[in-house]
């Protein structure tokens, strides 16, 4: 019945397991992106297209780019060129590629071959989500904006370059 769901769930569990067992942080990031994509596909199958799009745009897009930036900042050194040479060997990218190809095939199958009757899945449209978000949950939106402002100020304060060498400030 729900074969696409079980395939996507298996991909999510496998790629998450690979995330916590990798040694190299960038390889773990690759697998984490695959895991997030499969969770987005599960959201899509659950009838929640809005959060599926948000999952890809914000999680797999913005937050992962932040991780890549930090890993790149910390990785400066003579060993990075040698590391780059090792990144191009096939056994590193073949795992994420296979899992992502599985997800892409599944997405194509769902888009092309499956006719869904509207009564089969109770789809929650972005309109309903928006009405709920700015209706009963408007206080939560205000609190989220405060939280984001605090995160911005905190990240700016912590990420400033020290004038003196070493020596963390109290």
């Amino acid at each position, binding site marked *: *019945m*729900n074969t696409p769901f079980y395939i996507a*769930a298996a991909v*999510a*569990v496998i790629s*998450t*397991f690979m*995330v*916590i067992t990798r040694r190299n*942080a960038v390889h*773990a*990031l690759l697998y*984490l992106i695959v*895991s*997030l994509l499969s*969770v987005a596909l*599960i959201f899509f199958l*659950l*009838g*929640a297209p809005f*959060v599926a799009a*948000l*999952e890809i745009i*914000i*999680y797999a897009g*913005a*937050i992962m780019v*932040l*991780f890549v930036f*930090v890993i790149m900042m*910390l990785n400066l050194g003579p060993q990075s060129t040698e590391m780059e040479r090792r990144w191009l060997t096939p056994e590193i990218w073949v795992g994420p590629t296979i899992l992502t190809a599985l997800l892409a095939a599944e997405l194509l199958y*769902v888009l092309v071959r499956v006719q*869904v009757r509207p009564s*089969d*899945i*109770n789809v*929650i449209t972005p309109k309903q*989500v928006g*009405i*709920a*978000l700015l209706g009963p*949950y408007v206080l*939560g939106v205000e609190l*989220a904006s405060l*939280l*984001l402002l*605090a*995160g*911005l100020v*905190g*990240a*700016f*304060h*912590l*990420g400033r370059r*020290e004038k003196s060498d*070493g*020596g*963390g400030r*109290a």
Partner: protein
Amino acid sequence: MISQIPFEHGLLLAGALFVLGLIGVMVRRNIIFILLSIEVMLNAAGLAFVVAGSRWSQPDGQVMFIFILTMAAAEVSVGLALVIRLYHVFKTLDADCAGKMRG
């Protein structure tokens, strides 16, 4: 053929992903991996919310997912700033090096 996904199976998947993230937090000592595992756990919690919202066909689950997303973004920005600071001070990413407090 696609029909409604069983509620229990969605929650089971969310629980499995959460446990994997928890294992990652407990086992790994590299602080970047700890942050990645926290992301996995937050994502699993959001998945549970969306599954429950889909079960009762209410938008509340997706609203909670948006809040979790916001919180994850704020958390990861502060966390990564702390990682950079930790690396500048200790020259390592080992979380155990930062286990002692000063003062």
